[in-house]
C-alpha cells in the first residue's frame, strides 16, 4: 500500500483507513440502480457484477469507453447506470451487449444529450428521435460492432450497444422501458 512497504507504513495506512471508514455514512443505493431488469425473456441476464452507477463521462469511459469528449452531457445533475446484458441462451455471438441508462433533470436535457450523442457517435446516420411513448420503436443503427439502439424515455435515455441483431436491441430497450414505467418512471414530462 506504500511505495516501499514497511510494518510502519502498513500500520499508518491502516490507521488512516480505519479513521476514514469510521466517519463514513453509507448512503442508500441509488434508485436508478434498481431500474434495470435482471433477466429478459430468459435470454438476457444482467451482469450485476459489472453494474456501475456514475455521473461523469470519465467514469463511464473506465467502464465502457465511448469518447474522450462528454458526448452524453453527463454532469452532477444527471445519474447513469451501465452494465452488460449477457446472452445465456448459449448460441449467441457476440454474447454480450452493453446497456446504458441516463436520467437527466428534465426531458429537454435528455433530448439535448441524445442529440449530442447522435451527432458525435453516429455522424452520417439519419437522426430519428421521435420516441415519446412506449409504442414508439427505438432508433436502430447497424454499426461495426453490432446493432445500436437508443430511445428517449421522458427524462431518461436508454442506449444499448453491440447487439447481434436488431431484435435483441429492441428487446433490451423495450424491457428496460417497461421496467421504468412499472416503477413509475419513464415518460413523465
Amino acid at each position, binding site marked *: 500500500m506504500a511505495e516501499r*512497504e514497511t510494518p510502519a507504513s502498513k500500520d499508518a495506512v491502516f490507521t488512516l483507513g480505519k479513521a476514514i471508514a469510521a466517519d463514513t455514512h453509507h448512503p442508500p443505493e441509488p434508485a436508478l440502480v434498481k431500474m434495470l431488469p435482471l433477466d429478459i425473456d430468459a435470454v438476457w441476464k444482467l451482469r450485476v457484477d459489472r453494474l456501475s452507477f456514475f455521473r461523469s463521462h470519465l467514469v463511464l469511459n*473506465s467502464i465502457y469507453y465511448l469518447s474522450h469528449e462528454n458526448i452524453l452531457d453527463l454532469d452532477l445533475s444527471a445519474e447513469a447506470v451501465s452494465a452488460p446484458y449477457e446472452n445465456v441462451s448459449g448460441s449467441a455471438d457476440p454474447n454480450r451487449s452493453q446497456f446504458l441508462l441516463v436520467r437527466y433533470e428534465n426531458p429537454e436535457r435528455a433530448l439535448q444529450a441524445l442529440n449530442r450523442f447522435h451527432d458525435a*457517435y453516429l455522424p452520417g446516420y439519419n437522426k430519428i428521435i421521435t420516441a415519446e411513448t412506449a409504442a414508439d420503436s427505438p432508433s436502430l443503427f447497424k*454499426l461495426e*460492432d453490432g446493432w445500436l439502439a437508443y430511445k428517449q424515455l421522458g427524462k431518461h435515455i436508454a442506449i444499448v450497444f453491440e447487439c447481434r441483431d436488431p431484435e435483441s436491441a429492441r428487446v433490451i430497450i423495450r424491457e428496460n422501458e417497461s421496467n421504468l414505467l412499472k416503477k413509475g418512471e419513464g415518460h413523465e414530462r
Partner: protein
Amino acid sequence: MSDKMPVLTRRDFIRGTVGATLGASVFGLQWPRGEAQAAAPSLVTVVRDKNAIDAAKNIDITVLEKMLAQTLTRVTGQKNTKDAWLSLVKPNDVIGLVPTDHLNPTHDEVVDCVKNSLIDARIHANRIRDAQGPRNAKKCDALIAIPGLKAHWLTGIGTVLKNYIMYSGSPSSYHKSNSAKLGEIWNLPFVKGKTKLVLVDSLYPLCDKGPQPDPRYQWNYNGFIAGTDPVAVETVCLKIITEKRKVIRGEPWPLSPPPICVEAADKVYGLGTSRMEQIQIQHYGWEHELLL
C-alpha cells in the same frame, strides 16, 4: 495545421480509423509518412528474474545488475556491458538519465544500477546527470529513457512516450485526446535523435487508473523491457498491460482513455513501429505470466 481535435469515439478504434481521423484533421497531410517506413524489425528485449524484487518490494541489486548486463548485450549484440554502452554513447557525451518520478515511479535502484554500469564502462560520473524535467535535456548529448511501466488515467499508457512530457513545457497540453501528440515532443530540436536506449523498469508495473497507484492493479513482473525503438518498446509494454488487464478481469478490459499516442508516434511522427509484426521480441529468464 488545425489545432482543433476531432471527436474521437469508440467507433474510430473499432474501425481502426483513429489515425486517419487524427491525421486528416490535426496533423494535416502528414499521416501517410510512417506508412512508407518498412525497415528491419525492431528488437525489443524482455529480461526477467523472479528474484529481482520480492513481495515486500525489496530489490536484489545483484540480480538487477545481471539483468541490466543481459539487456545491454542483447539489445546491442555486443559481448560485454562496456562495449554495449560504447556502441550506444560516446565517452565524452553528456548522458542524461530520464526516469519517471511520479505514478509508479522508476525505482531508484534501477537508476543507480544504470549509472553505475555507465561508470563501469569508463563514462565519467560528472558526465552523467538526471535529465528529467523541463529543460534538462538541452544540456545532454545522449538520453537514456528509464520509465516505469504503467497505464495512465490521462493518456491510456504512460510509459515510454509520456516520459518526455515535461520537455514540452506544457504537460497538460498532451492529455486526453491531445495525448495523440506526445510523439511530437520526441521531435523537438533539443530532444530529437538523442535517445540511445529505452529501458523500462517493469519490476512492479501498474495496469490501471491513477492518479494514485492502486495496489489491486500492480503486480510483480520482475523485468526490464528495452530497445532502441521507443515506439516498439511502448507497443510491447502496451501488450503486457493489455494482457494483464484481461487476466485480472477474465475478459477484455480496454484501456481508458485509449492509448492513441502509440499509433500516432509511428504513423504521424515516424519515431518507430507500433506494428507487432515488425517487432522482434526476445525474451530471457523467468517465464511465469510473460503476457506476450
